[in-house]
């Protein structure tokens, strides 16, 4: 589905990404991990078409991503950013409805959609248990609730590929798991492709089918969590050596324990 061939990105004199080859296809959750400044967010900007690579190409369904019209691209790829929704004075429902923008004509009516607009908005609000907040202003919500509203907006966008940029950073552990469970359930149901940047290696290991480990703008290791979450590999990238154990309840899910 998305194929990046030998992409690099340079800002002024600074090389942020260099010769990355990455192919993401079908229904899987791909985690992008790596230390601060390793180029994770830049890679996502290139894969989502928000920026163009300095060299190399990104193809979506065998077509260069830069040739897509913005609305067509928004029907394919949705992006959830880490910063919570700004205080904008819109209600929860109004924000969730914004996800339908790519499907609306300039008059504001839906062109082609299997669902009547209101149905999918209501459905998503119920699914994320936001009914009681529907008419509240997002400004009044907690960080966790705001992130759930942002996720609801992305779900109503009905993309085929979902990209999440550190979706759990500002959340407590309960919300982190809740967020990932919702994403995973939705991914399984719709057979989505999910690309997610995660800082927490244990969450990445629990939820991702594949991990891409970046170091200074290049891919250091790529593969299933069992091969990437390895004491030697982690030590060579993060400059600290953790203890790696198997999750006591889940098979093939390595977890790290920090060691001084």
């Amino acid at each position, binding site marked *: 589905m998305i194929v990046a061939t030998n992409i690099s990105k340079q800002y002024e004199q600074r090389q942020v990404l260099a010769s990355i080859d990455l192919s993401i296809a079908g229904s899987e959750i791909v985690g992008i991990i790596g230390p601060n400044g390793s180029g994770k967010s830049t890679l996502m900007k290139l894969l989502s078409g928000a920026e163009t690579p300095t060299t190399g190409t990104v193809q979506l369904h065998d077509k260069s991503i830069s040739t897509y*019209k*913005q609305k067509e*691209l*928004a029907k394919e790829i949705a*992006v959830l950013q880490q910063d919570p929704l700004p205080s904008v004075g*819109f209600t929860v429902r109004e924000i969730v409805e*914004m996800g339908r*923008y*790519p499907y609306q004509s300039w008059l504001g009516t839906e062109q082609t959609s299997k669902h009547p607009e209101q149905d999918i908005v209501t459905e998503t609000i119920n699914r994320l248990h936001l009914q009681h907040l529907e008419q509240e202003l997002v400004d009044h919500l907690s960080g966790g609730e705001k992130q759930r509203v942002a996720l609801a907006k992305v779900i109503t*966008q009905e993309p085929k590929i979902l990209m999440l940029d550190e979706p759990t950073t500002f959340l407590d552990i309960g919300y982190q798991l809740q967020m990932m469970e919702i994403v995973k359930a939705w991914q399984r149901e719709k057979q989505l492709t999910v690309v997610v940047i995660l800082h927490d290696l244990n969450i990445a290991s629990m939820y991702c089918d594949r991990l891409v480990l970046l170091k200074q703008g290049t891919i250091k290791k790529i593969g299933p969590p069992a091969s990437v979450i390895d004491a030697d590999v982690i030590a060579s990238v993060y400059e600290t050596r953790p203890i790696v154990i198997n999750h006591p309840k889940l098979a093939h899910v390595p977890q790290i324990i920090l060691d001084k």
Partner: protein
Amino acid sequence: MTKKLLLYGGGATLLLLFSFILSLSIGSSMIPINDVWSTLLGKGNEVTEAIVINVRLPRITLAILVGSALAVAGAGFQGILRNPLADPYILGVSSGASVGAAFIILFGLQSALFGKYSIPVVAFITGVLTLFVVIKIAMRNGQLQKETLILSGVIVQAFLGSFISLMVSLSDTVLNEIIFWMMGSVTMRGWEYPQMMAPYLLIGIIILLTQGRALNLFALGERQALHLGVAIERTKMTVLITSTLLTAAAVSVAGVVGFVGLIVPHLIRLVVGPDYRLIIPLSVVVGSIYVLWADTIARMALMPKEIPLGVVTALLGAPFFAYLLKKGKKGINL
């Protein structure tokens, strides 16, 4: 949303209609509302016809057009620049237009270039040119950053402002005329000015009406709007250029009428919230009402002397807005 639009839009339109009739009836000679009606329907006598149709109607029409153009342009600038201080003049359009007008007045070219249209045509051109200079300065790699854009507008405005001051200081005899032009007025313009302005206004408003939903998404930040399918740079250009054309059209016929484009969209926001699908159409109507009354007061308050329109819009608008800002429940969300 549709319900709200019908409710507030219907209410505002009724108020505009009421204001329109009332303002036709009041003036140095008071004409009863019934007579205004019959004159409008073509059944008036010669006297009411002369006053209502030939004197007041064109002036009031121009006030309505100028008010709606400035208010809707202000909404457009605020929607793109996301700055509470944004108004139709923030990118220097008014200074540009003033330079053109002052130049014409200073050198006595009022009827030399384009007949009696010299001032509006030249002011319009210099106003629009200013925007292109400002955009040219602010553009980086094909992208417009709003902070850079605002700064570049401020710089160009300061530069052009000094030119205007220079021209004012050079002129002894026409000083008053330049200053009065800059303070804004819709008096003694006849039917030509409203006719000249109406087409721009209509096209401009229609274009901005189609951008309401995109402007709502800008509230979430430009990157979010991009991923929801908004062609960011194209939308910015469309709204900025359209709003500038509207502003330039208004300034070129009526001078620099201040404050309307700043407070009318804010005022609407305080009542209906941040939805641009409401703010844009309501700005058209409320802006009309605002300038219509400001002009009525301008011609009535110190009769037979007229107060410059720009003085009234700010003199009344500032305290009223301060009151709303203090009392408003919804707060200002751009």
